[in-house]
């Protein structure tokens, strides 16, 4: 039991490309919270892009090889391999599933790095951070309650489905973030759109599709009485945060729903000093909500 506990304190980490730029707030909050909890994230040396939607849409061989190289890099490191981006997680886990059965598509220079794909345990970051022992630790160490937040947890699709790849038994009604948020003192509101799609990468070429899907999410979240949305996927965060004003205009109603990464709220509850810097990167400023929720002035005054 002890070794298992120790193993979970030092894990391999695959951040993915968007955490270097558009999702910097997510990246910084993950690092801040992991450090505060004493969890060591060992970033894969020289990791490459997972290929995302582009590779799986246009080049199956590339999507398998891009993942195979990252999996090979992770074979020597601590397990599990923790992945914050839901799409990267899905690509790595899907490729691993396929590679364990058949690795004939792998090119020589990548196959040479290692072919023991079964040795890598790919885990989504929000699953890792919502394990019972981590929630218990956060609950023990949290010093700031999040009482005023009425949150709906939005898990999105890629981290959950399909269950034979993701290993999520409750893929239609996941509970991890709900439990974590409740432990942090937020009011967690149940809703039926936990794992509905936000449109993901369609935001570039077909923003109209994303607007339609996201409008449904806003409508329902507001109907259930939520005042914020909490997510563990940077595509969901971007789609729900970046176009909120435009989508609200199209809906013909007022929408004010700050969209938090769950790690940001962990940071607030644990009073990690940099937390307000992360929140300052959002397009929908959470200032009014945090002020109203009774969080201390230094957290929100510069947002």
């Amino acid at each position, binding site marked *: 039991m002890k070794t298992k506990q120790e193993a979970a304190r030092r894990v391999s980490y695959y951040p993915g*490309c*968007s955490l*270097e*730029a*558009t*999702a*910097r*707030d997510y990246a910084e909050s993950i690092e801040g919270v992991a450090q505060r909890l004493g969890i060591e994230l060992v970033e894969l040396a*020289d*990791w*490459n*892009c997972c*290929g*995302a*939607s*582009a*590779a*799986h*849409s*246009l*080049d*199956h*061989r*590339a999507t398998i*090889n*891009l993942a195979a*190289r990252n999996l090979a890099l992770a074979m020597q490191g601590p397990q599990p391999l923790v992945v914050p981006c839901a799409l990267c997680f*899905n690509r790595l886990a899907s490729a691993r599933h396929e590679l364990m059965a058949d690795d004939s598509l792998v*090119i*020589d*220079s*990548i196959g040479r790095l290692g072919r023991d794909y079964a040795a890598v345990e790919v885990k989504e970051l929000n699953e890792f951070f919502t394990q019972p022992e981590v929630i218990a630790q956060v609950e023990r160490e949290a010093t700031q309650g999040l009482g005023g937040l009425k949150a709906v947890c939005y898990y999105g*699709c*890629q981290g*959950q*489905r*399909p*269950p034979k790849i993701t290993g999520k038994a409750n*893929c*239609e009604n996941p509970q991890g973030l709900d439990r974590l948020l409740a432990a942090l003192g937020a009011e967690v509101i149940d809703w039926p759109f936990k794992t*509905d*799609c936000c*449109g*993901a*990468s*369609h935001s*570039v*070429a*077909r923003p109209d*599709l994303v607007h*339609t*899907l996201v409008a449904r999410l806003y409508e329902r979240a507001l109907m259930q009485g939520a005042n914020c949305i909490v997510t563990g996927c940077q595509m969901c965060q971007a789609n729900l945060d*970046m176009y909120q004003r435009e989508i609200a205009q199209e809906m013909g109603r007022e929408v004010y729903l700050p969209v938090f990464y769950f790690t940001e709220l962990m940071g607030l509850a644990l009073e990690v000093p940099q937390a307000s810097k992360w929140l*300052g*990167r*959002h*397009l929908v400023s959470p200032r009014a909500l945090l002020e109203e929720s009774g969080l201390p002035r230094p957290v929100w005054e510069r947002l």
Partner: protein
Amino acid sequence: MSHTPGGAAPPAAYDQAAPKTPPPPPPPPPLAEAIRPNGRWLARVEAASGVKAGACFGCKKCSNGCPLTFAMDLHPYQVVRYLQLGQVERLEGCRTIWLCASCQTCLTRCPNQVDLPRLMDYLKETVARRGDSVEEKRTLLFHQLFLKGVAKRGRVFEGELMGGYLLKSGGAFGPEALANAKLGLTMFRKGRLKLLPARIKDRAWLKELFK
């Protein structure tokens, strides 16, 4: 047929005594429009993609759960059905394969585990490799630019990707230009736009993979 005395009489349709007058059959479709099934195509796609599309029995769970049917020209179950019937042209020219967001709802709920997202990918790849015209040109362009960046650096550089996309799709000039510029500026101000690209150190394998 006996009925409980005093009970309501059954509707005429259930009464065996009612005369059976079947509606006249619809006129047959013109021969040119009739579907001539071609089973060879199904076997070929199944072998190449690994998707067991022949297992579909048409329950339509995929399409009832699909979040994007509102924009699709074929519902997901129709994609499978056209494949089973060998209607190649209808499938390869459709928008649906490009609109699928790969959210995996259909596969998760399919009682026969037909991997529709993988099938959509297989069809997209086939059409794109042949260089055929694609209904969703902007989506294809975005994917192509994305892969080009990955082939060059091993990582995505969002700044270059978005810049290139806006130039080539017309988003840098048309009515959207101002909104796009404003969003870019806001992202920069929020520290969410990286100015210099990251590239991985070991890039020899990229040449082998993307030659």
